[in-house]
């Protein structure tokens, strides 16, 4: 619909779609997720699990591409769910979905703290996290955004590092050939695929940028290329872990496996290079998370789903309260995770939320094809209704797999996710109507 005539001066190229999608998927916690995959998938099959997760994710990417093409808006999932499933469901879904940003930030904080504690034992890792979060939050409050190209550069540097370092490790420590007819334990393998989904989490957060691309095909193409690059980098990294520590035995106990891989690849230089990559990757996760989430909170407050004071802007036109609130929340999650070392439940909860959201994307495509059959679709998701529904069911199973995976007898991911959905449902059911009372007044009339 929009943008038929003329051109726009400020538009983004395909390269930015690739680097943004890959960058959003490349969190520091992916290192630990890769180790978890290696443990679940019986070592040498881990890279296969990551590749299978990647192939499944391509189906979800195809769904997101169709939806984004129909409605290229930064409100993305909020709009698509609203049109297909109604406003209330869209509000609950958006709130739960947005919470994964905080989960990823908390998990990245943990990775950074542990890596720093290992590299520089004299300085508490949590202090580094607090300082980094504070600096990034303060910069955002002043309207200073880390330039997109810096984030993009960091993502590409990280993925290139993983490919090169992992290849060097595999060169020096070749993977043992699998025994004839040996395969992974089926249950563990599919749990590994479920956790493997987490490695790609965030690739679809490029869709809210759809308004900034002139070519509607940039988003689908960018997502697919990014998924391929991320799959290659982390499959190699997982294979390197397996080569160094079969079954992720010894490495499974490490909370900074990337430092080990860095040392094995290039000695001291590799170790400190990997430490620097961990720091900058966590930093870009914090920055991207705060910038995205604060804007999301602003939008929700503007529509009265959240208190309108959260939409208040400071003199730099930044939603300051939202930003500070999110920083405090992220810091609190980080403190709890670092203190308890229970990062795995964040990984699994994040993987579950995303898997369910991918299942929802299948439902949205099917519903909107029926409800809005004549709407222009610059890109159509692969397959007919049954194929898309089939992928949706697989994502559902993967989501449940992630929820029930973990060493604890208590399925904490299930508890956390149930709590998130319950809180969002209750809030939208009972909290939002009170805020909505303000909205009933005719907008624009003198107050």
């Amino acid at each position, binding site marked *: 619909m929009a943008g038929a005539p003329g051109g*726009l001066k400020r538009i983004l190229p395909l390269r930015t779609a690739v680097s943004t999608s890959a960058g959003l998927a490349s969190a520091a916690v992916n290192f630990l997720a890769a180790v978890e995959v290696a443990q679940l998938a019986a070592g040498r099959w881990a890279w296969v699990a990551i590749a299978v997760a990647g192939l499944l994710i391509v189906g979800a990417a195809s769904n997101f591409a169709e939806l984004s093409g129909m409605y290229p808006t930064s409100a993305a999932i909020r709009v698509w769910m609203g049109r297909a499933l109604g406003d209330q469901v869209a509000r609950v879904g958006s709130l739960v979905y947005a919470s994964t940003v905080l989960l990823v930030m908390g998990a990245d904080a943990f990775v950074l703290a542990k890596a720093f504690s290992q590299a520089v034992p004299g300085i508490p890792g949590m202090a580094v996290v607090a300082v980094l979060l504070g600096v990034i939050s303060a910069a955002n409050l002043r309207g200073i955004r880390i330039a997109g190209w810096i984030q993009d550069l960091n993502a590409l540097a990280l993925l290139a590092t993983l490919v090169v370092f992992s290849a060097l490790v595999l060169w020096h420590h070749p993977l043992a050939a699998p025994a004839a007819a040996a395969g992974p334990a089926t249950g563990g393998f599919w749990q590994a695929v479920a956790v493997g989904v987490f490695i790609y989490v965030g690739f679809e957060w490029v869709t809210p940028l759809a308004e900034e691309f002139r070519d509607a095909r940039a988003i689908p193409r960018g997502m697919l290329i990014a998924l391929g690059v991320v799959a290659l980098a982390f499959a190699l990294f997982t294979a390197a872990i397996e080569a160094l520590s079969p079954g992720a035995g010894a490495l499974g106990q490490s909370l900074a496996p990337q430092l080990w891989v860095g040392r094995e690849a290039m000695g001291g230089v590799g170790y400190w290079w990997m430490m620097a990559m961990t720091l900058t990757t966590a930093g870009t996760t914090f920055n991207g998370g705060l910038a995205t989430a604060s804007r999301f909170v602003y939008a929700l407050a503007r529509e009265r789903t959240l208190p309108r004071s959260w939409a208040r802007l400071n003199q730099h036109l930044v939603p300051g309260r939202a930003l500070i609130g999110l920083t405090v929340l992220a810091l609190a999650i980080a403190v709890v995770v670092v203190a308890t070392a229970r990062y795995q439940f964040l990984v699994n909860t994040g993987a579950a939320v995303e898997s369910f959201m991918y299942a929802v994307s299948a439902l949205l495509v099917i519903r909107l094809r029926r409800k809005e059959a004549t709407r222009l679709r610059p890109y159509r998701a692969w397959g007919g209704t049954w194929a898309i529904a089939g992928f949706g069911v697989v994502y559902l199973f993967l989501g449940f797999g992630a929820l029930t995976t973990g060493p604890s007898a208590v399925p904490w991911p299930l508890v956390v996710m149930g709590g998130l959905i319950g809180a969002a449902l209750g809030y939208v059911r009972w909290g939002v109507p009170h805020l909505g009372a303000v909205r009933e007044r005719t907008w624009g009339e*003198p107050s």
Partner: protein
Amino acid sequence: MMREMEPPSNSESDLAAVLRAFCAACNQNPKLVAMNRDWERLVAILSPEGDRHWIRCQAGRLSWQPDEGGREPDLEVEAPRAILEAVFAGRMAPTDPYNRGDLLVRGQADDLLRLDIITLMVWGE
């Protein structure tokens, strides 16, 4: 907060009149003029019914333009005519049609936020 709108002339469409009044409202708001001092943009306002209008922001002041003057726009706002009229006349918050997918914007995210803030400052909560 602006409440006085210029009466539309009989020779122009309702949407053009609404946009002219919107520009006038913005220009009467000193905070907005100060805020937009360095924001030079050309905004295209489009509708599926075939409306084509342009609003130019220069030196903090907004002006309605009947054509783009040979320039490429920085931002495009597209929605059915009724929604555009309601939003720019202050009868509807832009967030509502935006979140329903009825109002689409194309351009830089920061410009999009600025446009939202402008309507908020002109029409209030």
